[in-house]
């Protein structure tokens, strides 16, 4: 039996060997990964904020988004010989996946959660778990467990060489930052900004905040809370769908089980950031991504999940409200 011994000396040696260039690479990798986690975490936090429901099916909406993106890619000629240019292809993949995932989110809310709105809290939680298993196993059945490759590395390239998505945009400490990395971080930031503006500056956003604060009171004030909840699920799922396509473009594959671990880590990010807090989910996602990247880089691949979920436990013990969460005042 292997005992994975954790040696402080080995970690120190690794840090020195990797140097500042390696540290930048790990930071870069962590920010990209964290952007994906942040997008998924936003979905968890938005739904929890409105309904106090942990939507465990959310990771699988992300998985479905990745599959929809792949479907668009396959329908338009596939990665090695697409029918249209790279930029319109990627835009189309995003749009279709986001709308498709959004539609799925609405359907899940309508059929699995809405009937249980007034049931004890455990009921929608169990329903969420059921939806998660249903989606995973349905996709497994349909795909025979096959992994589908976006082949993003060769997408738009020639003769099997690396495509333009992976060509460097600029270098830092001689380490490249590629087109796809910039695309992911900038798209994620743009979506987070759009969400922040939606929540803070629009009528829908105001209604969402009111419903999150007190659903009953909001309803009495004339807010259509059903519509607000449906919109929340739609927006959350749109973000997850976008994250799914980003994953496919960055990592290159999609498969039925990809939502499980990503969903767990995004959930951790939402909790670390303060469940129910939108800025918290963003910061939590980036934090988890960076921590994971540095854990793998400095300590080793087999330690990353232990480190991340160890952080979750620590936060629950020391700061249960998370970084941006607030204490709930209950009237007695």
């Amino acid at each position: 039996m292997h005992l994975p011994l954790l040696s402080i000396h080995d970690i120190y040696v690794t840090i020195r060997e990797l140097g500042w260039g390696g540290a930048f690479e790990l930071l870069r990798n962590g920010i990209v990964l964290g952007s994906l986690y942040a997008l998924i975490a936003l979905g968890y936090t938005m739904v929890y904020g409105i309904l106090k429901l942990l939507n465990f099916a959310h990771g699988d909406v992300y998985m479905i988004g990745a599959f929809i993106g792949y479907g668009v890619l396959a329908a338009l000629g596939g990665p090695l010989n697409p029918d249209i240019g790279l930029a319109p292809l990627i835009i189309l993949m995003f749009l279709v996946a986001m709308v498709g995932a959004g539609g799925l989110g609405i359907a899940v809310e309508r059929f699995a959660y809405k009937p249980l709105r007034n049931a004890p809290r455990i009921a929608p939680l169990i329903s969420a778990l059921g939806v998660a298993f249903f989606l995973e196993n349905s996709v497994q059945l349909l795909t025979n467990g096959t992994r589908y490759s976006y082949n993003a590395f060769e997408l738009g390239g020639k003769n099997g060489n690396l495509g333009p998505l992976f060509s460097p945009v600029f270098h830092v400490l001689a380490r490249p930052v590629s087109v796809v990395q910039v695309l992911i971080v900038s798209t994620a930031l743009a979506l987070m900004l759009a969400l922040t503006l939606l929540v803070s500056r629009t009528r829908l956003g105001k209604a969402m905040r009111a419903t999150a604060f007190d659903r009953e009171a909001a309803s009495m004030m004339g807010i259509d809370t059903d519509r607000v909840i449906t919109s929340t699920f739609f927006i959350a799922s749109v973000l997850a769908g976008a994250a799914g396509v980003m994953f496919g473009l960055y990592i290159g594959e999609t498969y039925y089980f990809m939502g499980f671990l990503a969903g767990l880590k995004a959930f951790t990010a939402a909790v670390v950031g303060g469940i129910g807090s939108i800025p918290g989910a963003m910061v939590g996602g980036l934090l988890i991504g960076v921590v994971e990247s540095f854990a793998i880089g400095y300590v080793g691949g087999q330690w990353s999940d232990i480190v991340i979920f160890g952080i979750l436990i620590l936060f629950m013990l020391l700061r249960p409200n998370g970084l941006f969460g607030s204490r709930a005042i209950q009237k007695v």
Partner: protein
Amino acid sequence: MKKVLVAAVFAVALSILAATAWGSASAPARVATSLATASVNCGSTRSIGIAYPATGDAASLGVQQFHWANFAVKRWNKSHKGHIKLVQGDTQLPNTAQALAVAHQFASNGKILALTGPAGSQEVQDTDAVYKSGGLAAVSGSATRVALTRTKGSTTRETPKGFFFRTVPTDGQQGDRVAFWIHKKLKKTRIYIIDDEEAYSQGLADQVQADLSKAGLNPSRDHVSQAVSDFSSLITRIPSNTQVVYIPWQLAPKAQIFYQQLRAAGKNAIVFGSDGTFAPGTFEAKGGYVSAFPVDFGSAAVKAYKKGHGGQDEAFGLPTFTSVWVNATAIDRACKAGHGKTTRAKVRQQLGKVKLSASQSLLGFPVKFLTKNFGNYQGAGDMAAPADFAIFHIANNGGYVRVG
């Protein structure tokens, strides 16, 4: 009073349910044990169970195994009176629960006289007790872990003697071959080894690391879970001047993604895979190498297979052809000796005596099973010399060319 009555009825119903569940849970085990020695009419068609990953992460390899198994059945049935048919069991490697479910199904299916598979070393570890209870000996075409047949260091032999055979050389032989190739043929000195934390991969990685260390090299060693797809930070750990990255992984699609991410990070190390990544069309690490089962590509049978499968040789599955042929031969002999009747125990006894010529095995060498330890890596149930692994080079068009 009504409440007491309802409670009493409920309690009785629950007891009946529990008793039935207990009875049926232990029934398959009792059935399986009795089937181990039960006499069976051979009939004109005999059943071989094939436990393989038809779906799941390793499906790309499992499908190859099933194609070759089917090919073996067709060829056997053309030339033998006693026909063979396959009973399929999808193990969804690396899904342990599913492998166990298949094991229970096969062990308690009285029609099955022999077993081809399971595919993965960890599946053999998890299911051998169940198959043994049913009297079935596993004949695997791809489980390569040394400890399955041989006590190694502090690890004792992991399968009972007489209940596990394999038509593929061991990790020890594969590890020696790979280390020799990297050190003596490629003449590389800066090597990075990454296992995927499964039994198969760790064993092979340990072997190669030990061999290279003995040769005076100092390979780095790392680990990554099979669940991981983003290798970017792992790749950061690999020094830029690394010459060879050895990845003895079970999942060829993961190996391909790793190779692509390595290249995208600007690192040009040669990627060296193992038989688990031997998947032309899936793992295409240009300029890389793969160690795999040797295949007699020149044989008429292999050419016929390629013709019937779109020009693909799907070589990973070929030892499964050999496994089916071994099982079919053992059943045929046991049935003849029993004048049309046999038992699983008698089929098992015949397994160890089966000898195939090179043209029958399609492996490029004759097959004969050892009955005791031999060399450093082989034990009873392994193929005797000259069974060994081959090395393939991955050309720029992704094709595999045998070079060693």
